[in-house]
């Protein structure tokens, strides 16, 4: 990939200040504030219908928020249509113009800006080179593969030199292998161009891998904003804990609470973990432990010890997933392949547990309905 298309960092920050979006009776986005930094790869992660696309459309200007303000580079975007904003959107289905050649597609934004034909052609060729499609401008989009079309869409969006690139699940139509490849490529293009990327996805793996920061959304509300590590290690709500990555869940009332330990009374007896969110003694709470944090309690009894029967052992290559049943509840344990306990036989009984520092106790409120 040539560096010719890369220019100095030109990303701008995007601020959503108390925005709200109401469609008739339906509140698509509750009062939300987001602060997306210049040149950042920012993902909005959530299940379908959570309002993430609505936020994207508010930033791009296709809809105006019913309340609040959208600022890009400090400028209020109120009343400015999508063609007057320094943003470019990559659609889920890419929306390439099928009747135009690839080069015409890429140059379309420049044509709209009145650039001369010759300069347009040069610039389109430059951008196609940036995305690894040098010399293919004469083709029709229909003559290209899915991955190539993806790159054309990226080149077309970058052609207008946007300060913010908005991506609406553009990888969801690709097969797994291509998707993984395009993730790396998108990340590289983002670094190279310095453009602020706002990436919408329902795929947590995608968000974790690519993003500088992630906002996890549910039902029109942002549940947590943070780096991938923060989101994964310290989920703020039960929803984030279950939506991002896998988690074992234990329910119970809070019986003890101090600054760094919370204890709940679970059917397995008292369990302890790090407290998160607003907890009070007597509240219904949930304790989450990642499968890879679960251990066999051989001698060194951790903070919790659960007698369980091994139901199934799935070898997944570098690691092994063990499916246990403890008191009727399924528990997943993930161990590195080759670790001492990873060869346990299905049907055998074990005591499994986890360290309190690896568990997270969160107020249960709200998850039951979702």
């Amino acid at each position, binding site marked *: 990939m040539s560096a010719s298309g890369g220019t100095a960092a030109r990303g701008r920050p995007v601020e959503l200040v108390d925005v709200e979006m109401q469609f008739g009776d339906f509140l698509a986005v509750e009062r939300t504030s987001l602060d997306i930094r210049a040149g950042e790869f920012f993902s909005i992660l959530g299940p379908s219908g959570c309002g993430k696309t609505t936020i994207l459309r508010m930033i*791009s*200007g*296709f809809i105006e928020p019913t309340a609040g303000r959208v600022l890009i580079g400090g400028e209020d975007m109120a009343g400015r*249509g*999508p*063609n*007057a904003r320094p*943003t*470019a*959107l990559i*659609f*889920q*289905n890419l*929306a*390439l*113009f099928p*009747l*135009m050649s690839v080069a015409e597609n890429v140059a*379309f*934004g420049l*044509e*709209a*800006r009145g650039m001369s034909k010759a300069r347009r052609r040069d610039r389109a060729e430059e951008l196609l080179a940036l995305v690894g499609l040098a010399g293919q401008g004469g083709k029709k989009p*229909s003559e290209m593969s899915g991955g190539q079309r993806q790159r054309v869409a990226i080149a*077309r*969006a970058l*052609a*207008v030199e946007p300060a913010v690139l908005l991506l609406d699940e553009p990888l969801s139509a690709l097969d797994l292998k291509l998707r993984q490849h395009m993730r790396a490529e998108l990340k590289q293009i983002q670094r190279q161009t310095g453009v602020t990327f706002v990436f919408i996805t329902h795929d947590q793996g995608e968000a974790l891998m690519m993003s500088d920061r992630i906002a996890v959304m549910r039902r029109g509300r942002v549940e947590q904003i943070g780096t991938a590590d923060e989101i994964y290690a310290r989920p703020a709500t039960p929803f984030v804990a279950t939506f991002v990555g896998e988690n074992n869940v234990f329910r119970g009332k809070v019986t003890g609470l101090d600054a760094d330990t919370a204890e709940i009374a679970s059917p397995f007896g008292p369990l302890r973990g790090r407290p998160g969110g607003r907890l009070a003694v007597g509240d219904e709470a949930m304790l989450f432990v990642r499968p890879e944090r679960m251990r066999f309690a051989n001698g060194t009894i951790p903070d919790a010890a659960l007698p369980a029967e091994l139901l199934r052992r799935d070898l997944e290559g570098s690691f092994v997933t063990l499916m246990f049943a403890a008191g009727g509840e399924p528990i997943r344990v993930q161990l590195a392949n080759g670790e001492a306990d990873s060869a346990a036989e299905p049907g055998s009984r074990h005591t499994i547990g986890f360290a309190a520092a690896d568990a997270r106790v969160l107020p249960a409120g709200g998850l039951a309905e979702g």
Partner: protein
Amino acid sequence: MTARPLGDIPPIGLGAAPAATPRRRRPSAGIGGFATFRRAYGGGIAALALLLCAFWLVVMIVLPQAMMLEQSLWSRQSAGDVSLRIDRAYTEIDLLRFDLQAAPAAEKPAMEEKVAALEAEIATLEAQEKEPPKVYGLQNYTRMSGLHFYIFVKTILYALLVTLLSLVVCYPVAYMIAHVAKPAKAAVLLLCLTVPYAINELLRVYAWLMILDYQGVINGFLQTIGLVSFEQKTWIPFLESPAAVFVAMVYAYVLFMVFPILNALQTLDRNQIEAAQDLGASTPRTHWRVIIPHAKPGIAVGCIMTFMLSVGSYSVPQIMTRGLSGDWFSQLVYRQFFVSNDWNVGAAYSFALLIVCIVFIFAVMRLFGVGIRDIAK
């Protein structure tokens, strides 16, 4: 028809429209097509369908056109000359008979022979006068008078203008219904467009007559606000202008333009429009570069239908002009057939019109860069 389900054989009819996948190739017509058809529906039904298609093609389309073409290529030799010769022969016979009374006996047989010869000639001439011989040639086409040719050209120009007007009116309407209006409103709009078509075309045209007449709705309104007066006949003579015909025609054929364009526009992915806007294109540019190119096949079909309907329309100009603002060619054709009773010239005129229509179809397809297959969609 009872189709026999036979596994997953694709339902291929004769001249079936291309299936959902846009790039799938059309099933090859002819023997192969018929074989698939027979396999899917059985020999009896396949044969019946083929027979009906052939009947339709030959009896409804080819034969009448062929007869028209044949009719247009000959005329009866003018009878004027023959009648004169018959009259002359009768006079000569009368003279000979008169001379015969005083003629010498020796000359009588020769004169009587002459009379007999003349009588024989009269008989053949009279037969000829009754049934003049056909003369084949292009005379029906080439003998069009200057006035008729003027009307011919004028009608084509008018029909083009009506087509253009319809396009200008219908494209925004179709676009509104397809992409701007909310679904419920779009349905109402569509209903409003369709409802007038439940009424007879003549009544719709008469409605326009009543609106545009000297003492019609518009002039009535103008009188109410004091701009014209019926007593002083200062009304605006809308009907004396060809525009009256245009208005009624655009109204009469609006659906034939709206629906093809609407169909084409409805297949346009909304994201395409949004993508163009997002990339900074103004509304006109979005239409010019993205929406209109997509709607081209629909526009082509709409233009072809509207042009053919308006260039051949008889009732609209007949009712709207009432002879006040010049004939359309279709009226001339009618008069050749039913007033002059000259089917040969009538056939030639209508055939000329058909040729214009065919030329128009190819011109439009060329202009919009669409093929028959795009149009069939």
